[in-house]
């Protein structure tokens, strides 16, 4: 229970370096609709799927065959596959979200890669359930951050920001200040 709580808090709040990714959101053209939610869903599903597969791959193929060195390339393959697969599923069942997510597909790839890097380096997962759970939680934290960030961006876009700082620049500053704030809770999680 305690570990799960730590994982939850840690993953939701402390992965603030993901915030650097958020700047990209502002650089992309503004689309009608809410791409944040679409990206959040896509990333969440893809990450859960890939972390489950990665766990199975790692424990049932790479470790027994003494091929741990193949970890990174194998994971990358898995992530790409997972993203494409999730997109296909979304296309079937949530075409509107899919439409938004495809515009940001490169971003989804990068997010998944960055987030799974944390997962992999962490390697806390002892069971398959743990792997799936941490994938979900990290994605949930990421989605929450996206939502918070986009709600803030909505305010900032109508602000009277000095010309040189409009757009991506102020988005990065916002992300920076967000991570400054998150440092307050960073010390909560034993590293």
């Amino acid at each position, binding site marked *: 229970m305690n570990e799960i709580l730590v994982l939850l808090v840690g993953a939701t709040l402390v992965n603030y370096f993901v915030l650097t990714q958020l700047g990209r959101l502002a650089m992309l053209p503004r689309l009608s609709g809410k791409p944040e939610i679409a990206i959040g869903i896509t990333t969440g599903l893809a990450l859960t799927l890939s972390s489950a597969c990665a766990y199975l791959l790692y424990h049932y193929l790479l470790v027994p065959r003494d091929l741990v060195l193949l970890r990174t390339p194998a994971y990358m393959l898995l992530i790409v596959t997972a993203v494409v697969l999730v997109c296909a599923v979304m296309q079937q069942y949530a075409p509107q979200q899919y439409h938004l997510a495809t515009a940001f597909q490169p971003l989804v790839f990068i997010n998944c890669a960055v987030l799974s890097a944390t997962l992999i380096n962490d390697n806390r997962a002892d069971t398959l359930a743990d792997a799936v759970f941490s994938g979900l939680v990290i994605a949930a934290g990421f989605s929450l951050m996206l939502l918070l960030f986009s709600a803030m961006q909505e*305010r900032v*876009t*109508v602000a*009277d920001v000095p010309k040189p700082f409009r757009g991506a620049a102020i988005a990065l500053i916002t992300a920076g200040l967000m991570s400054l704030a998150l440092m307050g809770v960073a010390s909560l999680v034993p590293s």
Partner: protein
Amino acid sequence: MSSASSPVYDFPGGIYPPENKSKSLRGPIRTTALPPQLWVAVTQPGFAMPLLCVQAGEHVDKGQLLARGSDSAGLLVHAPAAGLISSITEHAIPNASNLPELCVVIDTDAADSNWHKLLPLDWRDAAPDLLVERIAAAGICGLGGGGFPTHQKLHAALQQVDTVILNAAECEPFITADEALLREHAADVVTGCLILLQITGANQCLIGIEDNKPAAIAALRQHCTDGRLRVVIIPARYPSGAERQLIQTLTGKEIPSGSLPVHSGILCHNAGTARAIARAVVYGEQLLSRITTLTGAALLEPGNVEVLIGTPVDFLLQQAGVDQQQLSRLFCGGPLMGIELPHAQLPVTKTTNCIIATTQRELPRPPPMQACIRCGLCADVCPVQLLPQQLYWFARSSELEKAEAYHLHDCIECGACAYVCPSHIPLVQYYRSAKADIRDAHARQQRADHAKQRFEVHQQRVALEHAQESRRRTERAALAQPALPAAGNNTSAQDVVAAALARIQAKKAAQASAPTVGKDEPA
């Protein structure tokens, strides 16, 4: 009868601006002298083209019809006094746009004798339709400020409402026209209420009046002998006199967004309108005059006057002893929802309930607006529970879809938000502009969809006609062919191909368009 039994409900928000009402209530209602010239606006609802019934140079009698609408929905305009029509021209009138509107200019006769009244009716026996017709014939519109033709409102309400509400709240500062009216003419107002009950078949009439008008309440109580009438005293708070807020206060009902009070079984009329209805039915008088408050620190003799429609404002101001040195700004209506007048060369219209001549101190010009600090004071006072500061951001950045999602169209433009805004942001103006933009956008989209549909039907029709035409041509060609067998192989081969193509096309077109076209084009 008793007000004790009537519960009073609450509505959210509201403000308590200084009332400034006592000044204009010191004396009785005065009658002004006959002005030398009247400018009678013949504006129709929705700025539709009025149909004029008189010509320049013609002499009109008091009560003679000047103009009407192009259909039954229009508003009749009568001559407020006898005189010669010197011209019919566009003239500035009190309106927000400051654009001139068509006015009939009457040079009044000093000897103002006979009034062409309508026949008095015995309303107790009259059929509702007849009464509504009479109200239309008297040219009555909402005197509270809306100016919507009363007969239109009543048409929609026939057999639809169970409660008539008389709006005597008069919550805006400075305005005392209804209060003065009730003090002196409560009997007429009560008769008006009874006529409204007779027309609508409603079973009760609630008279909503703010608790800061004890004399008017006493006068009303004295005349309310009918059991269906109830005087309900409501706490003084702006905007308790706004239609939906008054209904909420008196009945506890919220009128659903986008629907009219009539759809909830409620009809709301202003006290002045009720009096005009009574005068029209009982005495056959057309709406030729109204009670208007003249007030403001720049007037030496503020008060309420019974004024002919079309009387120039500067004439009224002179009668009330205006101090031109002190006069800073002029307003028509109250300080919260009224309009600022560019000058005094404007006529009184049927909706002019108050003229305020202010000094610099009384209602100073707004200081320059500052940035919104999201203090939320505006949200606290909003009677509709909107989020004014969010709407402001959306309106400012023209995010119309979001403004719509935050229910901008439910804003009643009461001005409470801007009244309390510490940054002095003209919020209401932002909302008005955004609302108009949204309306325009919707109208555009509707026009586009309509045009698209018509264009598609048009295309189908054209295709069908082409197909029929080419079929006829091939048929004619086929008939003509035996007569010209030796005209050349080339031509006939081409004809055959063309005919075949045409047939295919015709079949296709017929298949594609048959069902729709069949319906739309009976020919």
